[in-house]
């Protein structure tokens, strides 16, 4: 990975944010969205999408979602995940399995927690550098709440997000909580 990749990514997204969001609104929303972060740096791709997140009505997925078993596709944070759950592969809901690397960038969903009825921004980060995890078919998910086509890449879950790591080979996907959506 070279610096030019991050430079180009940052420039593109900064420009996109500048075009679409007022500065006051962007600072206020990005501030609240960045309350909780993982140990990884949040790249602009995440901040940009989080800032645009709107409160969501209750979807079919929301109505059926459960909050007890993160190794199932209907776990509430998995409302827009496409791939194999890392919790089925030796990792966890925000943990990559041994020997893999978390992707520096991710796609973003907004999911409703059935316990507190609040919506949260979720970073769907891929774990990379090993071939596809061989887990139970029950762990292969493809949910679609607020999932947009690849021409809106920040909200698309078909992309292999292993950009920028030492290997772009996909292994599994995590669903790290970023913060409460407004």
């Amino acid at each position: 990975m070279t610096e030019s990749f991050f430079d180009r990514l940052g420039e593109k997204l900064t420009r996109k944010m500048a075009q679409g969001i007022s500065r006051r609104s962007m600072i206020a929303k990005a501030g609240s969205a960045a309350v909780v972060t993982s140990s990884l740096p949040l790249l602009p791709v995440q901040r940009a999408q989080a800032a645009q997140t709107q409160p969501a009505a209750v979807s079919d997925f929301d109505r059926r979602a459960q909050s007890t078993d993160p190794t199932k596709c209907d776990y509430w944070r998995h409302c827009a995940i496409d791939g194999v759950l890392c919790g089925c592969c030796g990792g966890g809901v925000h943990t990559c399995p041994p020997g893999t690397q978390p992707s520096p960038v991710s796609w973003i969903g907004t999911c409703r927690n059935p316990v507190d009825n609040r919506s949260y921004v979720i970073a769907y980060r891929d774990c990379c550098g090993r071939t596809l995890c061989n887990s139970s078919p029950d762990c292969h998910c493809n949910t679609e709440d607020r999932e947009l086509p690849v021409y809106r890449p920040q909200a698309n879950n078909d992309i292999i997000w292993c950009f920028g790591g030492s290997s772009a080979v996909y292994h599994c996907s995590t669903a790290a909580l970023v913060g409460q959506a407004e």
Partner: protein
Amino acid sequence: MTGWFRRVSAMVVSVAVSSPVLAADPTPVLQAEQSDVAQLPAMGAHWVFPYTKTTAITIYDGDNGHVLGTIPATPLANNVIMPDRRRIYITETSWSLVDHGDRHDMLQQFDARTLERVRELALPPRALVGRKQQNFDVDANGKFGFIFDLSPASAVTVVDLSAFRVVRTVDIPGCALVFPWQSGGFSSLCGDGSLTNVAVGTDGKASVTHSKPFFSADGDPVYEQSLAERAKGDAYFITYSGKVMKAHLGPQPVIEPAWSIQQAAGQPAAGTGVQELAWRPGGTQPFAMSYYNHHLFALMHTGTYWTHKTAGTEVWELDTQAHRLVRRIDLPTPAKVVAVSQDQKPLLYANGENGNLMVIDLQSGKVLRNTHIDAGAMTVTPP
């Protein structure tokens, strides 16, 4: 063993060994064989190319269900069958040491009769994204191939297929996918609801235009798997809710007013409510078209908005010129992929969620086969 038993046994063995010589058996002795390799006949209209497991495209004869051959293809691959049906192109990505090492992005040309890999071309890094035809396509005369790149900046690599060389890479910021024109260019869908249109001259130079927005990427996005009719340079852009917009592609695309799949079937147009139950399109390859009569086949299910990847329980056949429903076809198994042969006695194919390939005769409406083949997220038919 007693002496008597030994004598009888020896006699039986002797008779058994000598009897072929004694009997006048007319059956000739089987001859040694030479190992050889099969070749395929000219590609039939009813051949079908589903992606199977995570390793291959398996070629089936839709008329009898026989496997005809295999083309290697990982989940990252895309393929195009050329209009002459003599060449098959695969775009593929691999690493020198399986999960690490040097990355190789390649365009591979296969001979459609021998299935031999004829030549390979190194490409700039392709988009690593769920399979769909719109990641890689060619123009109608087969001069140019267009390959979608995402690094994550968006671009398209233009390949001269005759010279078999990369002509150039064209940046398409904020846009994605390729919808080929009749010749000399392609259009891409953009996040602001517009099209970016790229003309590629015979000298390889590219010129880019932008259309006005004609859909809302936030409100009701156009499916990535919208259809392109190469021979005419037309596209059929279809939104998550089921609105169809025909477009004639070029430097200045002409986009016709939207019509609703549901209204064509005598139902209210579906909206975008997350609690609004309606018949809706869905799947990983939710649309196909018979280009001889321009009938659209859409995988449909009952659901709310945000069910755009949900498997269809029916295929709706729609006349895109009259904007009316022709018929609804019940599927034996919910399906995520629909495809159709391009002859005038068409077969409909559907990849079931359970890995089955369903083959339906559209003249009789009969399900010819429903067989487990580990069918995946995409199926291609000969043009």
